[in-house]
Structures are given as C-alpha cells and as structure tokens.
C-alpha cells in the first residue's frame, strides 16, 4: 500500500493561459496519458476540424465544456512518477465559476497560477492569487507561460516576478515559486529548457516532486473532532465504546491527558484502535497523526457524542457562539442577507447560524473593501460576523484549515451556499 500522501495540487486558469496545454504536457511528457485517451482526443480534435491535438479535451469532460471550449467545473486527474503520486484538481479560471475553483482549491497543498508572459500580471492573476491566499493553500507556483513568445527573455521574466511580488505583499502567501515555462513547446515543464540557460531553478515537474508538505501539518494543537461513536453490541465486545474520527491536528498517544468539549471533563486516552490493531490483538497503536482514521477509547465513561472535540487541557480551541470569518458566497439563486438562519457544518459538528453583520465586501479583482455593501451574491467574498445557536470549537483558519473552516447550507433549497474561513484576530 502506498503509504505516502499523494501531492494534491490545483491548476487555476483558463484555456487561453495555456492551462490545459500545461496539464496535457505534464501528463504527456511524464507518460501518464493512456493510449486510448490520446486516440480519443486525437479523433475528436480531427472530427472538429482542429489542425492540432486539443489537449483540453483530456480534462474538459462534460458535454457543455467541450461545446464551449471552457472549463466549468473541477476535473480531477491522477498521475505518478517514480518519486511521487499526484492528484490534480484542474480548476476553472472564469469569474462565474469561482465557486468551483474554491471547491478544487480548498483541499490542495499547492496551487499553480499561470501568467501569460506577454501580458504579465493581470486582473485574473490577482483574483486567483487572492483566492489561493484566502484558502490558505500552503504553496504557490507562478508559472510564467508562453516564454517562447517573448523570446525567452530573462528581463521579461524578472519584470513579471517583480510585478507579482509587489502586489502579493498584501496577501498571505507563505511560499511562492516562479518558473518560466512554455507549455506548448515543453520548456521547463518536465524537461529542462535549452532555451533558458539563465534559469537555474527546478522544472515544474521537478518542483512538484520535491516540494516538502509534511511540515504543513499542524502537530502542536491536538484537535480530534468526534465523528462517530462505535458501540458494537456484540458478546465479544460488549463494553466497547470507541470514538471514531481523524485528528485535525496534533498527534494523540495512549496515556495522554485530554479534555472533551463542550463538557470540559478530563480523562486520559486508554487506547487507539484501527481495524488492523484489533485484528492483530494489539492493545493500542503507538499514536494517531493528522489525517489518519482511528478509533479512540477513553479511560473514563464520559458522555461523548458526534460533534464533540477532544483536545489537550492546556491547548484548547476557542469555544464560542460568535465568529468572524471571510466567506465566499456560492448560491446562484439567493444572496446572503443578514439575519437569515442557515445550517452550519463545522468539523463534525452541525449547528444553525445567522450572519449578524456584513463588515465589508471584498472586490476580488482590486482587493478594495466596500463597507457600504449590504449583501453578497454569487462568487462574492466578504467579511462577516456570525452567531451560532450552540458553541463551536474553532481555531483561526490560518492556523488550522479544518477547525477553521465551515460551510453554510440553505435550509429550504439544501444548497451549499457559503464556505467560511474563521478569523480569530482582527486581520
């Protein structure tokens, strides 16, 4: 079994930026396109009278996308090299599909934003980078594409790097890497370019293979949202009572002193089980790390249910009914209006919440804060204050993407209408 987490990364942009060409090139040059897929793409391209093979057809899988030649929704693609396996979330770049981009980028470790070397940093670059920053994607690659069309000019590349760095000062981007490429020709995508010997960094694929993401896990703040209570009711396991879930952060070990929220009662971890440890008759596994599905047993018989949170006595999340957050509005039928009550899902906890105040709407192209705004419509982002019916156990999104995020669901249409990123400080 592959023990290593695949690198999840997003590519953001539109066909014009060469996004599909980049993915096609990556898959093609790393020999990850299957023959029948390539034949299909060639046949369809020919049928349409294209004089080149349209690699966008590899990822634009829906009829409407093929008809319009645009990416509407995220497509997921999978490939491996001898060094790593990858999950690509191929995201649409058009502003009207921002909610789909947000879907794709919410789970990735790295995002790639493409810049056309001829045009430099444009409105779309700013919008995509802002969203990557808001979503807390730990690593960003700025792929300066179409270098062949600017004569592989180093000065142009440096100019774009400066443009971007200048603008990005206002964002919270932790790790930005600039790579000059030509997806069409293949320069610096998989193979090193012979046309840009002034560039000494990694090729795009090389960077994806080597980017270090293990350090992105928060191993300090122990957070275990209880997902499901395991009660076998069998003669063999009559008294078994385990709390199934996945640590959102921190490592849990048997013997650790813990506190269960909301009750605040403390106990210790008696043991941590997996199917394999139970089958092997082992008392407990050594530890549970972020992302690993486990079942925890506690030393004392407390009242613990789904939606409760296990943490350490001296490092607790904020327990609160009042939240501040940046939210992205995703409903096409109705706008956000203050005082409407929504279902709120946060970790494994479901409560109801209303937005009591819209502080400002953020113009995602200019980053201007419009404090006179009274509502948010589809694909708009704003800063809000919320009040929930019951306490939730939260961290700042920038410290923990899981305990810092939530979604809002419209209770009559059942649509997911907003994604929220919690802010505990006044920034």
């Amino acid at each position: 079994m592959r023990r290593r987490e695949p690198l999840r990364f997003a590519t953001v942009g539109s066909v014009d930026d060469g996004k599909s060409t980049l993915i096609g090139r990556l898959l093609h040059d790393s020999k990850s396109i299957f023959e029948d897929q390539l034949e299909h793409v060639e046949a369809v391209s020919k049928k349409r009278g294209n004089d080149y093979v349209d690699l966008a057809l590899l990822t634009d899988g829906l009829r409407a996308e093929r008809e319009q030649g645009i990416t509407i929704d995220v497509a997921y693609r999978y490939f491996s090299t001898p060094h790593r396996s990858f999950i690509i979330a191929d995201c649409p770049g058009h502003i009207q599909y921002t909610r789909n981009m947000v879907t794709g980028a919410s789970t990735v470790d790295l995002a790639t934003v493409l810049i056309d070397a001829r045009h430099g940093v444009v409105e779309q670059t700013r919008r995509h980078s802002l969203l990557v920053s808001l979503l807390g994607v730990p690593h960003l690659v700025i792929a300066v594409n179409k270098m062949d069309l600017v004569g592989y000019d180093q000065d142009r590349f440096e100019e774009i790097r400066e443009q971007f760095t200048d603008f990005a000062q206002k964002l919270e981007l932790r790790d930005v890497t600039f790579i000059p490429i030509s997806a069409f020709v293949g320069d610096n995508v998989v193979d090193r370019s012979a046309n840009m010997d002034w560039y000494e960094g990694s090729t795009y694929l090389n960077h994806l293979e080597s980017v270090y993401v293990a350090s992105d896990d928060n191993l300090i703040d122990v957070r275990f949202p209880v997902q499901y209570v395991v009660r076998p009711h069998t003669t063999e396991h009559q008294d078994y009572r385990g709390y199934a879930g996945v640590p959102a952060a921190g490592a849990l070990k048997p013997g650790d002193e813990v506190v269960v929220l909301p009750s605040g009662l403390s106990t210790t971890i008696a043991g941590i089980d997996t199917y394999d440890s139970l089958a092997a008759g082992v008392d407990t596994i050594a530890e549970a790390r972020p992302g690993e599905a486990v079942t925890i047993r506690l030393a004392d018989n407390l009242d613990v249910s789904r939606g409760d949170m296990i943490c350490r006595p001296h490092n607790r999340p904020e327990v609160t009914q009042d939240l501040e957050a940046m939210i992205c509005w995703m409903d096409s039928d109705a706008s956000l209006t203050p005082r409407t009550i929504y279902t709120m899902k946060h970790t494994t906890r479901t409560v109801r919440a209303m937005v009591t105040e819209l502080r400002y709407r953020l113009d995602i192209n200019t980053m201007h804060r419009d404090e006179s705004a009274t509502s948010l419509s589809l694909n708009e982002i704003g800063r809000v204050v919320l009040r929930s019916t019951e306490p939730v156990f939260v961290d700042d999104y920038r410290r923990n993407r899981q305990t810092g995020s939530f979604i809002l669901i419209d209770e009559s249409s059942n649509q997911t209408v907003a994604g929220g990123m919690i802010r505990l400080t006044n920034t």
Partner: protein
Amino acid sequence: MSTSNALSSSPLESEAITIFREVAAEFERPVLLFSGGKDSVVMLHLARRAFAPARIPFPIMHVDTGHNFAELMEFRDRTVEEFGVELIVASVQQSIDEGRIKDVSGARSSRNQLQTVTLLDAIAAHGFDAVFGGGRRDEERARAKERIYSHRDEFGQWDPKNQRPELWSLYNSRHRRGEHLRIFPLSNWTELDIWEFIRAREVPLPSLYFAHKRQVFSRDSMLMAVNEHVEMLDGEESFEATVRFRTIGDTTCTAAVESAAFTIDDIVAETSVARITERGATRADDRVSEAGMEDRKRKGYF
C-alpha cells in the same frame, strides 16, 4: 504526511473510511452497491475497517442483470456470509417481468443500460437516501468531474452543470424526501491504488481477475467470453486464450484482456505499465459516444 506504523491506515484508506463514517452518522438509510467486482469488494473491506469492531451498519445491494459470470455469483454469496451483511438483490429480470422495462435482443444487446430503472426502483422501494458506489474519477472523463457526495433528484438524475460546491471535507448530506445522494469513497483512488490495497490487505477476489484459460471470441478488437448470454455473429469464431478481466460487469458488456498475470504481484506489475485505461480496454458500453457515460449518469446510472 507519513503514517506512523504498519497498523495505521494510509491516506487514501483514511479518506474513504472517513466518508463511510460520515454517511453512517448523517443518513437514515444508506446502502452499498455490491457487484462482486474489485472496486465494490474494496469498498466492503473499507466499510469493515471504518466500523470495527462493530459490524457494517448498512446492507449491500446487487443490481443483477441475470447475465452473470458463475464465478462471480459464488464469490458474492461467500463474501456476504463472511461479512455477515444483509444482501438485497435488485433484479433486472424482475423489472422486465413486471413490465417496468423492455428486454433488449440481438447479438449485440446488453442489459447494462437497463440496470438504471431497476436500480432507481430499488432505491425508491427501500427508501435508501445514500447509495455508496465504487466509481473512481480516474475511470472516465465524466466521473472525473463528479463530487464525492453527488446529489440525485427525485428522478435519480445528476445535474453536472449545477453540482453543489464541496469544500474541504465538509459534506452536505441534506436532501428532500425522495431524493438521494450517491457517495463515492473511492473517488481519488486509481486502478493501481485498488490493486495495491488488495495486495497489502490480502483481499480475496473472484478468480476471473487472474489469468486463466478461457474460450473467447474477438469483437470490435476486444475479447469477449463465450457464454450463453452472448450470441456470436457470422464470422466470429471462438478460440482458447489465456486471459483475465480488468473490470467485471455482466457477461454481455465486459471483455477480457490477454494476460499472463496469475498472481496479485503480476497484476500490480501489469497495471503499473498499462498503456490503455481499464474501461477503454474492456467496456463495450463506453465506446458508444463521446459523452456516453455523462448521458447515462444524468439518467441515474451508477
């Protein structure tokens, strides 16, 4: 992120387990679609891993076209017994007998598409609100677009242009009465991941997946098994070949591939150098049109 020891779940296993638990916690009546094919077998094993030491808290359902490989049926029944789960059989033949659908005829006919009506009828009759499927995004380009929780309206239809946003691992389980969600815990697995799981976790499979000698005939450059449900056309001749199945649907729409992979290790090796996708190599139904799967999925297919 690396796992701490051999008794821990891998990242992809953990993701699937989490989805099983989430559904069990939030839905009233989930069901797991089980064909005996490798993906559904892996699903069943993952479900067991999610709830151990308790039993799997939902039944499994086989949509039976009546055109089955005998090996598969034996395997299905053996597995049901070993896992102690409740098996529901939704029969395409019964749908035909009751006049819900018309059987297809002719040498090239397949009941594959008829399954949709039987499946939707069974979902309605049992009141299932969450239906686990083994679909993977690497299988096919329409599947590559689908959410893990995929909403179906009261007609069982998928609306690919208006999918619910799905952020982080916060899944929206809300639906109206009569609607349901299709749940795909294996969304992010590749064919190779499936085989590596089968190897690492020692998962028993139907013998059809391993190379064996069989009477086959060639059609549309695919090797079809000679069997009672498929009529051979003029000019088609049967011959013996050493083959295995990369996917198993019913006998009318699943082709074999020539292979000398007799063991799991052979299969993992074969899969890691495969140049053709599994559906491209073996599925007659996917060759129909550019958007064959999208059209079927819209109507409520798996």
